[in-house]
């Protein structure tokens, strides 16, 4: 396995020199010691971070214009946040169980995570319903529009997560993969869960503080 190198070390290699040729011939062809799923997830998270950052920049810029009217935050949003925090914690525990090869606890953990994720989505929909009933439509003020936009984009990310959670869970139940392979998938999903929690906290915090 290649040793870890900084990007600067890497870019200053001289591939034509004898010593470097000898070292390079030993190279296994992999840059980072990561599974392709994990690296794929990191790439997606990087792109998503840019996406959400740009939304936040747009929000902060648009907020300065005088027609901005803040939207109330229903208490249910706090409950949804707690659900998301718990689901992230449970997923963390589940990865530990999976490491210890505890099939039943892992299985229950995965099911519970899925249940919490669906509850969160349903909770968000109820918040939408409440807001629309009290007259906070997307067209009423751009602050509301941003709220609907943020929750939709974040919700779609959760839906994507649920898709991969489903695939992982069914593979886990069928025991069709080796232990390292299935643990790698569970870890990957867990990292995504933590990422979406972090995104939600930033978005929710932004809307609370403005």
């Amino acid at each position, binding site marked *: 396995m290649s040793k870890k190198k900084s990007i600067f070390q890497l870019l200053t290699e001289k591939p034509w020199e004898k010593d470097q040729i000898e070292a390079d011939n030993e190279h296994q062809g992999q840059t980072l010691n990561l599974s392709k799923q994990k690296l794929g997830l990191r790439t997606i998270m990087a792109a998503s971070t840019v996406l959400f950052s740009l939304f936040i920049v*747009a929000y902060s810029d648009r907020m300065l214009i005088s027609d901005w009217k803040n939207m109330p935050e229903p208490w249910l949003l706090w409950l949804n946040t707690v659900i998301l925090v718990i689901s992230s914690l449970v997923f963390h525990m589940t990865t530990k169980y999976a490491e210890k090869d505890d099939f039943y606890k892992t299985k229950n953990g995965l099911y519970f995570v899925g249940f919490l994720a669906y509850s969160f989505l349903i909770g968000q929909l109820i918040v939408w319903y409440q807001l629309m009933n009290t007259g906070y439509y997307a067209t009423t003020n751009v602050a509301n529009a941003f709220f609907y936009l943020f929750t939709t984009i974040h919700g779609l990310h959760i839906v994507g997560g649920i898709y991969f959670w489903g695939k992982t869970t069914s593979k886990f139940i069928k025991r069709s993969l080796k232990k390292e392979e299935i643990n790698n998938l569970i870890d990957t999903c867990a990292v995504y869960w933590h990422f979406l929690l972090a995104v939600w906290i930033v978005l929710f915090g932004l809307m609370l503080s403005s």
Partner: protein
Amino acid sequence: MSDEYEHKLEAKSDYATEASSVSTPDIDAVPDAELPDQELYHSHSWWTTYVFSQDAKYIGIQYALTAVGTGLLGLVLSWLMRIQLAFPGLGWLDPAAYYQFVTMHGMIMVVYLLTALFLGGFGNLLIPLMCGARDMAFPYVNMLSYWAFVVAVLVLLASFFVPGGPTGAGWTLYPPQAITAGTPGYNGGIILMLISLILFVAGFTMGGLNYIITVLQLRARGMTLMRLPLTIWGIFTATVLAMFAFPALLVGCLMMTLDSLLGTSFFMPAMVSLGEKLTHEGGSPILFQHLFWFFGHPEVYIVALPAFGIVSDLLSVHSRKTIFGYRMMVWAIVGIGALSFFVWAHHMYVSGMNPWFGFFFATTTLIIAVPTAIKVYNWILTLWRGNIQLSLPMLFSLGFIVTFLNGGLTGLFLGNVTVDVPLSDTYFVVAHFHMVMGIAPILVIFGAIYHWYPLITGRFMNETLGKIHFWITFIGSYAIYFPMHYQGFVGVPRRYFEIYDSPYIDTSTLLLNKFITIAVLIVGAAQLLFLYNLITSARLGKKAEKNPWKANSLEWQTPQMPPEHGNWGKELPKVYRWPYDFSVPGAKEDYIPQNQPPSEIIGAKVEKT
């Protein structure tokens, strides 16, 4: 297995103690593969082989054909616009149609032709082959990426058939005019355009994920990053740029779609339209401009960096010489990529920004000329005292250097705020960006197609037809764009659908407009010649032997040419050197492929560059 391992250990220790005696065959030894071979999807029907293919080579060709097909429409649109400009008063096009064609031409050429062809087409074809992988990291996702692109193209084309036609807002789609009555396609075409772009971004993200991970993780043994051909460096860096830039387009498109469909006010200010007050209020059109150009400027380099990379390889192979300053070329690619995120507002000098803001962006814009100039010098130094073969790829590469230099120099003018303000929105800008981002990358694409055609079909393209194609395209594009620079200097504004003889317009402009249009028609027709060549050569072209250009990079070293499913037969290649060992003193041939073991080239002394 264990025997093998011991043998290898012995071999290694021999190598260490007798490093000077090069005659031992153990110098070929490389460690055993620690990583398992990739599992491949094997197709079992015509549909899964040729239509819903998961083989990156087929996906690359599918991407390329779809992109070229869409690009042909863009070409025809440019003909129609030019005829209108040359013969005003003929009533050939009405203003709405003219703006719609301008918009569709721009968007098709930039996004659906160039981006899709370089990254989707050449990326899929070349990344696994040049890195020594069997396929992309996620072949199924790769297939989804292509089909998302197809749907995006279909949605875009569908906008021609909705009431009101496609959008006529210009390829920048600036609100509020893009979604306000009076602009062609303001309530139908624009929505389809935005949806199509959203689909394109989604599809591209799936593809880009594959390109990044395949380059980083799935290379052959011995293939370090600094042994990769510059083509891969260019495509890789462009993909990273795209992954960071396309979200900005996505954000802009999503919010504008909501403004248009739901009536929100992200970008739409309070406005009176057709005597009626619209429901929007407070929106910020300038916000869209920032988002658009935060995508739009890196987009220029998303197209240019793969072209830089490909042209470096073409020049090296066809002048039988090591690329001059390989590391500097890599640094320039990475540096240009990083800088490209800090220059976007130079597209907005006339939007009324703070002068210091403009000053900052003018400075960064001029700084980006440094790595770019390094690249141009290095291309020229690669040619210097090279054994230049005036083959078709070389001709197009030379054409690229001149054209890119030309377009780059006018970029220096436009990068300065004070020079840009009078030249903004004139034909000078049109000439600049067509030279640097239209003709230059297209010349590389042609060179690359002539170069890699034997890899795909096992045959060469017709040389005579190719030379006719080159000279008409090369001289013709100068006939088109040189006069436009002049028109810009005398102040002819762009985006006017008719330019009459008037006190404000010089008569020479009208004459030049006719001249340009004739050149456009001839150059366009020459592309049909290219298409004819492309199609017929697959059957009738001269048969190519293996590695016909005597190149070093891995894509030519597959057991079969064209490469089969899985690319490498039973054994994955092992890489012993970088791809630029041309004309090495003491070697039997004037090239040493990357996977040729050292024991086969004893006596060759690789020189430093």
